[in-house]
């Protein structure tokens, strides 16, 4: 009987840890999303639109989940350093230059990236700041 009680307490403890871990990630995600939205409004929305719809052939939409997924490790570089190459989004070619945003700190880049990849119909989940920092060091 005693063993049974100790075991169940132990299991409850483990479950408690897992649940609280998940909660921490959910909290982080919400935190990134709300800060990311503010940064998006200030830096990205002019060209990419309130709902990530883009602007004609001048600025690509941010709704191509496949593009976002295949270029996952380059997104942070695009956000911080801009883009000066032609990109295929939703099967269309976009050749305009995207400006750099050197004023964004790594954490800002991470937050706005998480916001974009989890808005406008995208759902790619949370990416911690540390991973984004790594991506930024490997920018070409």
């Amino acid at each position, binding site marked *: 009987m005693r063993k049974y009680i100790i075991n169940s307490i132990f299991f409850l403890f483990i479950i408690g840890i897992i649940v609280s871990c998940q909660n921490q990630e959910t909290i982080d995600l919400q935190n990134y999303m709300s800060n990311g939205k503010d940064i998006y409004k200030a830096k990205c929305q002019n060209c990419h639109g309130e709902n990530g719809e883009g602007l004609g*052939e001048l600025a690509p939409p941010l709704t191509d989940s496949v593009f976002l997924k295949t270029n996952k490790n380059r997104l942070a570089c695009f956000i911080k350093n801009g883009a000066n190459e032609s990109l295929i989004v939703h099967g269309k070619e976009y050749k305009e230059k995207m400006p750099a945003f050197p004023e964004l700190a790594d954490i800002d880049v991470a937050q706005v990236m998480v916001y974009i990849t989890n808005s406008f119909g995208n759902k790619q989940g949370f990416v911690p700041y540390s991973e984004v920092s790594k991506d930024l060091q490997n920018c070409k």
Partner: protein
Amino acid sequence: MNKITAYIATCLLVVSIFTACKQERKLPFYGERHAETVRDAAGIEKIDTVYQTIPNWSFLNQDSIVTTNKATDGKIYIADFFFTSCTTICPTMHRNLMTVYNEFKTNPDVMFVSHTIDFKYDRPHVLKKYAKKLGVDGPKWLFLYGSKDSVYTLAEKNYLVAVGEDSTAKDGYIHQGYLVLIDKDRRIRGAYDGTKEEQVEQLKKDIPVLLAEYKK
């Protein structure tokens, strides 16, 4: 019986007062104005108000064709100042202006005129590429290129929009994002902040009001 008649009379009176109060909405006139004595057709002298008008202009359009104010004769038009490499307010302005363009593109009495303030880079072929990528084709929306002096003077003195070069600004230029509504007599009848959706909605409502003035 008498009571009913009196009641109906009161109702009619109230209705007529209300309809009398409902005036046709008219757009204001912007800019300077002065009084001038003019003679009407019968030769009688009277005092009239003269409003500020847009002077003659001549610029290159996106097809490198010399375009003058004659292009807007008999039309109302919406003018704005922008540059193609602008990453701040211009994309929003033109995103909003596109919705106006799409609503009125079949109306032959409405035109759009965008002046670039980047006299160094925005040559006509750059403007052409920009227009195409924005989704605009044809002469209904003019993208005009001119010398710094001519465009900046026109902006500040005539359209009342502040523009300028500023080396400290991110893209090198600063300007206001007004969409200026000009009537068929080249008078300024409205100025709307092109970065604010509700003001652009107001512009869409004001265009028919202005057009109605000429339908008499």
